[in-house]
């Protein structure tokens, strides 16, 4: 793996993904082995949108590598309120930090920001665009639970605005997967994403549905996302579809016993709490995997040796 920035999962090959996942597994097994690997390194956190899991897991990851973080803080308390552009902000923080993590409400923000900085930049969500580090922890969780080849995955919910969905779908085309996308018509995958998936996987592994029942029994993994009330122009339209995309124990009676249920969190009511204690639930494990994945990712991006231990310094 040799990338200056991580902007989209489209830039990751199967080998890249496996490198990160394998290394994350090593770190997971023995975090102390890398505890001082990046002592003195500073990671800049630029979150222009609220974030809990992503931000805290990057912060934890950097600290567990022996480094530290500088945090822009909330948008309200930053120079953004003075009208500073994103391009200026990243150029300033680049002078304070050895790498940057950016979340921003505009699509393409990470691509643009990366054109203004020389330090590695990780896209932690650009509007409805991409969220590649989430994808890596999703893939790690899928691999742990169901494997990544000969996999049938259902991805359900808000597929239109769900950046985690877009990133995951692209990355899965590197593997032998069948992807079923389940959503209300108004929240289907953006046509751009469908176009790319067909380009990457000639469309044979891609299917779109409006009802989970059509595919549930065949699934190894069900990846659920939140249908966001605020995306609907009126409450009635939301109420019509929301209930159709919630799962509970009764829903899963039709599923395989081995079905893994995932969710990028936060959830509201799309997964009933009664599923939490079943063997299906993998969403908290998924969230926890954010730390070893981001430790592995940061180490790769910050290491000059272009590999995890390429210069034999371990």
């Amino acid at each position, binding site marked *: 793996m040799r990338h200056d920035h991580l902007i989209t999962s489209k830039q990751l090959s199967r080998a890249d993904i496996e490198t990160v996942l394998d290394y994350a597994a090593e770190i997971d097994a023995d975090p102390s082995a890398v505890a001082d690997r990046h002592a003195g390194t500073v990671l800049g956190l630029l979150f222009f949108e609220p974030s809990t899991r992503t931000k805290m897991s990057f912060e934890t990851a950097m600290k567990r590598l022996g480094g530290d973080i500088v945090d822009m803080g909330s948008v309200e308390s930053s120079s953004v309120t003075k*009208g500073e*552009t994103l391009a200026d902000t990243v150029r300033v923080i680049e002078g304070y930090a050895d790498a940057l993590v950016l979340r*921003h409400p*505009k*699509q*393409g923000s990470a*691509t643009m920001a990366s054109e203004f900085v020389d330090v590695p930049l990780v896209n932690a969500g650009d509007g*409805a665009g991409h969220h590649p580090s989430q994808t890596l922890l999703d893939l790690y969780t899928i691999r742990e639970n169901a494997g990544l080849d000969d996999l049938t995955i259902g991805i359900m919910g808000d597929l239109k605005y769900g950046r985690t969905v877009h990133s995951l779908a692209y990355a899965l085309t590197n593997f032998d997967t069948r992807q079923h996308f389940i959503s209300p018509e108004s929240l289907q995958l953006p046509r*751009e994403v469908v*176009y790319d998936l067909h380009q990457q996987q000639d469309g044979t592994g891609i299917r779109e549905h409006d009802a989970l029942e059509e595919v549930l029994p065949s699934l190894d993994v069900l990846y659920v996302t939140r249908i966001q009330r605020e995306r609907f122009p009126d409450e009635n339209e939301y109420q019509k579809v929301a209930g159709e995309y919630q799962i509970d124990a009764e829903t899963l009676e039709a599923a395989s016993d081995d079905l893994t249920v995932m969710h990028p969190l936060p959830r509201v009511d799309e997964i009933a709490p009664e599923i939490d204690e079943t063997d299906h639930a993998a969403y908290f494990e998924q969230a926890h995997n954010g730390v070893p994945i981001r430790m592995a990712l940061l180490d790769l991006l910050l290491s000059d040796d272009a590999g995890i231990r390429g210069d034999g310094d371990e």
Partner: protein
Amino acid sequence: MSNGHDHHDGNDDHELRVSKIRDGTVIDHVHGGQALNVLAILGIDGTNGEEVSVGMNVPSDRLARKDIVKVEGRELSQDEVDVLSLIAPDATINIVRDFDVVEKHRVERPDVVESVLSCPNPGCITTGDEPVTSRFSVLEDGVRCSYCETIVRDEIASLIDT
């Protein structure tokens, strides 16, 4: 070839409806109905006294109906031809000097166009106040924003940043 007239389609009677030019550019084989968009790309709205002749929806063997734009006193730059290719992929560019066609070539679609189209996605970073130049990759059947990845297939002319 001795003047700015089109001989490919054998429609000289129709061609003669549009006057000959002495020096300038004849843009031929523009898809019917796109002539005004061609003028928009060239930034020509008549207010600067440009001498322009336009033929719209004239019969054509190749396109069934085509538009022709003749601009006196102006030779198109490569950048202009690149953008023109997005809405007139079959266009022929004839450079005329002293009533003779001295160059004639088909447009070629570029891989990328910069600074000429505005992204229609209001959520795209290029629509804000950032110091960023718009950039679109050219697809077989449209264009794609290099930042937000939005694909536009129809109404490309409406994105022209004039």
